[in-house]
């Protein structure tokens, strides 16, 4: 029984150790600014098209789903409010995080994983650089900066998607009413959780991606395994953590 529990407990311990070292090193020199900018480009600019697409259609499909329910109560005027609340609080942050986990947690795991199995990480240490500083920290910082921005973009295009369905397509409401209810529905509290979530998700995605990359073993096969694990674990944690954050905010 204890033998079954040992590997995951040891892995969790390793993960905490990596997370601790990465976070402690955030303010410590040296800072590899070039690597941070490069990662922001890969994660931010690279994910933008797919974030635009998923954001737009999730807003559109929300409006579509809600149209029937709302018309039963004669409340189609409220569609803007429903779309904006669900996007800003939950759908925007979670969908963007899952997209970025799929693209970038896997990218980090496979890149660091191939560096690990070809001894490039050892070479880095042998040649005077700390892989946590040079590889993990830039990815952590870049994701933490970029994911909240991507989430804001997703929220906005989601609202546009909802608008396209609600106003020109189904004529549920007027443009003025849609944007008005959408805007007024959002409270300070919603914006706080809408931005806190992507920040926490970013830390999860970057650390999980780097963690599985850095502990890769077993050649190219191992790289494939690390990549899959990173995406699965990062995505699952996003859903689990969003539950707990929401739980806290609902009680406020």
């Amino acid at each position: 029984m204890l033998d079954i529990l040992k590997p995951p407990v040891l892995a969790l311990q390793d993960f905490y150790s990596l997370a601790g070292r990465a976070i402690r090193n955030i303010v410590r020199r040296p800072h590899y600014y070039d690597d941070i900018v490069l990662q922001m480009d890969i994660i931010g600019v690279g994910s933008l098209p797919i974030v635009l697409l998923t954001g737009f259609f999730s807003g559109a499909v929300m409006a579509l789903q809600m149209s029937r329910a709302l018309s039963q109560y004669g409340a189609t005027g409220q569609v803007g409010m429903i779309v904006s609340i669900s996007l800003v609080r939950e759908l925007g942050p979670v969908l963007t995080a899952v997209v970025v986990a799929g693209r970038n947690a896997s990218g980090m795991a496979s890149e660091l994983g191939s560096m690990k199995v070809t001894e490039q990480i050892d070479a880095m240490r042998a040649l005077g650089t700390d892989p946590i500083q040079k590889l993990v920290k830039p990815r952590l910082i870049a994701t933490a900066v970029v994911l909240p921005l991507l989430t804001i973009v997703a929220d906005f295009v989601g609202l546009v998607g909802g608008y396209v369905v609600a106003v020109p397509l189904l004529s549920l409401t007027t443009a003025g009413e849609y944007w008005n209810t959408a805007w007024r529905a959002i409270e300070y509290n919603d914006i706080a959780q809408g931005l806190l979530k992507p920040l926490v998700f970013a830390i999860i995605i970057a650390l999980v991606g780097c963690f599985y990359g850095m502990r890769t073993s077993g050649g190219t096969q191992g790289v494939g395994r690390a990549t899959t694990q990173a995406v699965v674990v990062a995505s699952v944690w996003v859903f689990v953590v969003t539950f707990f954050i929401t739980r806290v905010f609902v009680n406020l």
Partner: protein
Amino acid sequence: MPEQSILRFENVTVTFDEIPVLDGISFEMRRGDTCVILGAAGSGKTVLLKTAIGLIKPSAGRVFLFGTDITELDEQELFDLRAKTGVLFQEGALFDSLTIEENVAYPLVNQRAAKRKKREIRELVEESLRFVELAHTLDKFPSELSGGMRRRVGIARAIVTEPPLVLYDSPTAGLDPITANTIVTLIIKERDVKKTTTVLVTQRYQDGHLLANFRYNPRNGQVEPVTGNGHSDTLKTRFLVLRQGRLTFVGDQQQLEASADPYVSKFVKREI
């Protein structure tokens, strides 16, 4: 006066998942020594080299690098000692996102002890690449080079800071005999021109034989056999044979060739 101790293993044991990969290893190298470590695949050669520069921590025993006990040092303190050690990793371990120039410049840019000006770095990189006869590859990426060329770039990167100790991990593994000899020739040249202490890890006895009996002649730029008239005493090549994490043999070439141990003699006979 005895020469300064460069590398010393005292009863070093390394275990992974409770399995010993190195088991009670002890040896010492002094300045100017050449050490050839022979062993089959999986015998622990790579682990031994990584333990020597603190990339792997021993679970028992002590490692002294340049006279400093490194078993308790943290990563930051190790960087300064590693800066005095060049390493060629098994497949070269070049950074494939960087050009050849950036790869060779990496230790110059990143080692605290080696900080230099931009122009100076460029000159040193070119000089080091000229040494391995690859000066024309500056702007290429590692993926554009052949296996043998990648090892040569790896050598250039290992020696660009002129470290007094250089470790070579299986530099000839997977190469054709001609390319393999080119690589060993470079190792001999580096050893004799820069007077570096050298550790060569290999599966090929031939490599050790070359290292023990050939030296670089700076007058004609050739590697020549040692003629025996007075030269041989300056060539202090020691052979270590590693078998499943244990040292089964330590001695010079004559002793190695005379060894009755079947594992040891299989190494010697297979290649000659």
